[in-house]
């Protein structure tokens, strides 16, 4: 059974699909289950997240060779990894219902789905119809700024009241869970007032300059909140789990793991290192729960040190204060680097242990100051001491340049096309695309294995860029993964292989209709 209702933003009138329309006003009231009938969103039993203790890859399965500027790691087909990959994770959570209000082009959207990971959801329709917006809405059910890296107020529907909300009921092996997120209309309006027309420019600057690491003790940069200037109060993304207010989006991570592939990621191998670092850190956070927090703490200390060097200059800055900050940078930096190294080793082992498919295997390496030291076998304490010494020696230079010359904020994930032994950035566009698909599939397998349950997979316009054989290989890999897939495309025919299993929807100008 599939029931869909949606309401187009600009008219505000509901066009009804296969079922009856629900009326809805924007606002966080919609996030939780409390606003709707008990038949759909009734209180759900609180279940502990399934996070299996997966075996740790044996140290010997990853081969490390030092190279200039970093560390080259060649994952070898470790037997531990190989046997692990055959150990199936539980099927992942599937979406039973998705409700949006004032989210992008949707004034309201209410989608009922078959909550079965074996039944992918396929959204087709012309450009600009609103397909990616639906995937983006789902992507807000995880820490961070969603798959478009939007500012908090950006998804709010133009012409709407200023707030937005996304609510989903998921059904996992351990029971249903209701997740909701969004920003309050009132809070968004207050921020808009505080910023004023000039402030809006600042806000855009923030969005470029920010990092994903998060504030102190936080979990995700601007995700955690955006300063609203005047009174310094912060606009926060509110999050609810089973109707109860959660501390922030980090709490979603215990319930849901999201892996996505979008056209915006096409430049992963050719863009600046920061883009790959962000990809990597998101992945690391999915397998190492403390990572985002450590990264946020490191970045705070790093910014404090640069501020100190800038304002008082190298000679004017209190050396004790600098030592204290460099101590924090070393402590958190080592934690960040260790978690990254561990995750890249595991990812390399997962790639290596995976089947030979139409998607070439990637060879992964991690370049970075502390990562290299740890990979070479340094104890964490020794790596921290060495990093502190480097920071101390670099004070004059960092004061002059205004940036921190070494550390985890400069690290890079290096990817090679393994069969061709060619850096990914030098590969053809098609080869890069295939590598990227393979890498994201490996990410999905790794998170499934480490967390004991398959992730939810969002694929935006992916099928269109693959030939028939690769498309079949992708669908095949996804079926074996066991996570629910949400895929978009302009052409229904691309998904013919999924006839009979997928739930098809036709998206047009902000309306969604069940289609066969």
């Amino acid at each position: 059974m599939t029931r869909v209702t949606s309401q187009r933003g600009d008219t505000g009138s509901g066009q009804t699909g296969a079922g009856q329309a629900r009326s809805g006003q924007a606002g966080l009231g919609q996030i939780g289950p409390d606003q709707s009938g008990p038949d759909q969103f009734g209180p759900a039993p609180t279940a502990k997240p399934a996070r299996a203790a997966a075996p740790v890859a044996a140290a010997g399965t990853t081969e490390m060779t030092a190279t200039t500027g970093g560390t080259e790691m060649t994952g070898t087909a470790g037997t531990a990894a190989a046997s692990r990959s055959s150990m199936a994770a539980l099927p992942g959570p599937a979406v039973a219902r998705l409700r949006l209000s004032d989210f992008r082009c949707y004034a309201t959207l209410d989608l009922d789905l078959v909550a079965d990971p074996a039944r992918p959801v396929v959204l087709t329709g012309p450009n600009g119809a609103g397909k990616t917006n639906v995937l983006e809405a789902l992507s807000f059910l995880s820490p961070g700024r969603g798959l478009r890296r939007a500012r908090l107020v950006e998804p709010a529907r133009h012409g709407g009241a200023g707030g937005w909300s996304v609510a989903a009921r998921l059904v996992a092996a351990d029971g249903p869970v209701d997740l909701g997120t969004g920003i309050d209309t009132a809070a968004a309006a207050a921020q808009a007032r505080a910023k004023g027309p000039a402030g809006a420019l600042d806000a855009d600057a923030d969005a470029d300059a920010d990092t994903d690491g998060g504030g102190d003790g936080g979990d995700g940069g601007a995700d955690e909140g955006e300063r609203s200037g005047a009174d310094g109060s912060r606009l926060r993304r509110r999050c609810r789990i089973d109707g109860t207010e959660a501390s922030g989006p980090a709490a979603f991570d215990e319930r849901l793991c999201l892996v996505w592939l979008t056209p915006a990621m096409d430049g992963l191998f050719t863009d600046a290192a920061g883009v790959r670092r962000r990809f990597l850190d998101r992945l690391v956070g999915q397998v190492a729960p403390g990572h985002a927090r450590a990264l946020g703490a490191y970045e705070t200390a790093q910014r404090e040190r640069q501020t100190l060097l800038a304002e008082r200059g190298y000679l004017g800055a209190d050396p004790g204060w600098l030592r204290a900050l460099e101590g924090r940078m070393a402590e958190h930096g080592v934690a960040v680097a260790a978690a990254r190294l561990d995750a890249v080793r595991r990812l390399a082992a997962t790639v290596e242990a995976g089947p030979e498919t139409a998607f070439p295997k990637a060879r992964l390496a991690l370049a970075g100051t502390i990562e290299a030291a740890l990979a070479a076998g340094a104890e964490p304490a020794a790596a921290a001491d060495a990093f502190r010494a480097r920071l101390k020696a670099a004070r004059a230079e960092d004061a002059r340049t205004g940036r921190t010359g070494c550390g985890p904020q400069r690290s890079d994930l290096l990817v090679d096309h393994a069969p061709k032994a060619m850096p990914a950035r030098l590969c053809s566009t098609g080869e890069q695309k295939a590598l990227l698909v393979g890498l994201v599939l490996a990410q999905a397998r790794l998170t499934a294995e480490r967390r004991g349950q398959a992730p939810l997979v969002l694929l935006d316009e992916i099928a269109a860029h693959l030939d028939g054989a690769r498309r079949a290989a992708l669908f095949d890999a996804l079926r074996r993964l066991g996570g629910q897939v949400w895929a978009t495309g302009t052409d229904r025919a691309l998904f013919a292989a999924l006839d009979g299993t997928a739930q098809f929807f036709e998206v047009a100008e902000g309306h969604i209709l069940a289609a066969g």
Partner: protein
Amino acid sequence: MSTGHAPDIDRLIQLLGKLPGLGPRSARRAVLHLIKKRDPLLVPLAEALATVRDRVRTCSVCGNADTVDPCSLCADPRRATGTLCVVEDVADLWALDRSDLFTGRYHVLGGTLSALDGIGPDDLSIAPLVDRVRREAIEEVILALNATVDGQTTAHYVTERLASTGVRVTALAHGLPVGGELDYLDDGTLAAALQARKSL
């Protein structure tokens, strides 16, 4: 728009509504309650407010807020245990003191180091702390600072500044989150926690 009462009462509602935890609605209810309980509540409250207004001061020794200087904690000889507990602000002092777990004296820093907010060592009560440790027979300084980057940076800095006094400096243990299960932690956090271990 009629509010149903004179501007005097309006003003009281507005002022009460500025208190933490009170909004305009609860402020209106509080004011109505005070008016109804004029003798048993409103009169003594007004007197208590006036007394505190006239006498409140910051303790010149520890930074606590009290109506006497030195504050009642600093004046109590039983609190001269040789242990000083360093906190960020008066709220932390009161919270710790309510718990009755600590029986010594306190020292309020008045914030944490934060280059981003322009708060440096001279803006905090660090030099007076060093003086106190030298003057009073202090054997141990407990740094009860928040587990934030700024809190920990300040702890590190204060520890260095106290090094010349030879006093023993300890800190509240941080690292493992409360209720954190070891096997749920990633290797990086575990490594950091292990590195930050404390002798007990």
